[in-house]
């Protein structure tokens, strides 16, 4: 099992959700987050007062997938979230030791 953590542009959330669904991913957790990468922040100007905003609003998606689904899930995210401009985000993949479905007690791939 793998845990996919994707940080994307907020307006791409709906596209990514749909693409992951089509790739066979059964569920996900979405969080509104702030951060920066190479995009850095942006500046805002109020009556001549210029403020640099370091942390840009992003959306974080977490999805646990069986190893067999990993490649197509990651590809689905990349295809759906890409705009080609700076700040499209990143996808992180990490090993996942176990998962439990609370209602039934199923574990591992069965729980996903």
């Amino acid at each position, binding site marked *: 099992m793998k845990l996919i953590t994707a940080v994307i542009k907020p307006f791409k959330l709906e596209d990514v959700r749909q693409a992951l669904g089509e790739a066979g991913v059964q569920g996900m957790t979405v969080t509104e987050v702030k951060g920066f990468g190479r995009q850095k922040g942006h500046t*805002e*100007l*109020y*009556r001549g*007062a210029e*403020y*640099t905003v370091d942390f840009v609003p992003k959306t974080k998606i977490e999805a646990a997938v069986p190893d067999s689904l990993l490649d197509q899930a990651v590809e689905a995210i990349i295809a759906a979230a890409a705009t080609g401009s700076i700040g499209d985000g990143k996808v992180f993949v990490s090993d996942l030791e176990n998962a439990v479905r609370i209602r039934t007690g199923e574990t591992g791939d069965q729980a996903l």
Partner: protein
Amino acid sequence: MKALKRCVASGCALLAATLPGIAAAQELDTGNTAWMLTSTALVLFMTIPGLSLFYAGMVRAKNALSVMMQCFTITCLMTVLWALYVYSLAFGTDVGGVIGDLGKAFMAGVAVDSVSGSIPETVFSMFQLTFAIITPALIVGAFAERMKFSAMLCFMALWVTLVYAPVAHWVWGGGWLGTMGVKDFAGGTVVHINAGVAGLMAALVLGKRRGFPQTPMKPSNLVLTMVGAGMLWVGWFGFNAGSELAADGVAGMAMAVTQIATAAAALTWMFLEWMAHGKPSALGLASGAVAGLVAITPASGFVGPMGALVIGVASGLFCYLAVVKAKRAFGYDDSLDAFGVHGIGGVVGAILTGVFIDAGLGGAGLPEGVSLGGQVMLQVIGAGTTIIYCGIVSLIILKVLDATVGLRVSEEQEQVGLDLVLHDEQGYNLS
């Protein structure tokens, strides 16, 4: 029946016309009264909720409620003081051109049948009260986010007594500036220069907000600010066209020039910002509109539409420079630009009133025997006197209060935010 009434009415009018003695100067006019009742409501609407929203949107979220609370409390406090003695000081029988007497204290003699000009004196008094409400409320913008609520109340009570009442009397109550020929139709001097200068003094005495200007202090909700600016614009028709105290041609022209100057100033500010920074901003557009409203205020009953256009462009330009450039250059923290917009806009309007009142420039015409240069000089005297008097007295009030009750909240309180610290409430409980 209707025809009979009309017949009787016209008969009376004919009689009144032929017998001038019957048509006394103090006759109530229902049309004028209807318009002044409306205007009074419009000007009150400028402060609550107009100015309150305009300001609340510009402060940080932790202080949004505090500025609304200040504006609302000022409305209440000014009303009570007005009824007790401030109306009398401003509009009572003139004493030496300087102040009104206390003959109207406790609203003495203001009864159901009292008439002022062609409207009930109750309406006149309430209309003038709304000006005495918005003027101190404007000052809130200069010291927002750091003044103690108790100190604010003391300051406003003293200020309306020692500064607003005398200056209003000088210009409108039969005092020396009005007698001298200074033209201030709706309060460029009495309201805007007065509030702007008092605000500057408050900003200087209180000092900068902690972290200004290096820490970001982003407006909490510019949507509220845009809504408030719109309400100010609408309410200003009561402010300017109402200052004619009648529903007539001058009131109509005052409304027209108010609209034109405001639009011109808003566009001026927007394009200046667009040129300087690459993007037009909503806050800039709204700020420009308020600058235009301020500058056309003294001129509104005197100038023509093209004069208004020039006044609008000039106020947009000068207020933009004051807010965006001068404030940064001098380093004072006029939080919401009460001085930059109202002080500077008031001066621009006061001086240009003396220019565009000229009939040759489309205005109502200079008073007999006064040259254009002479009128401009009078306007400079009016503005200058107000700046000096208001500046000095405001400074004294602030210093006295600072030494006694203390003006400023503690560093920790400022950090937490005035909503929670001073009122045990929060403007926003969104989660």
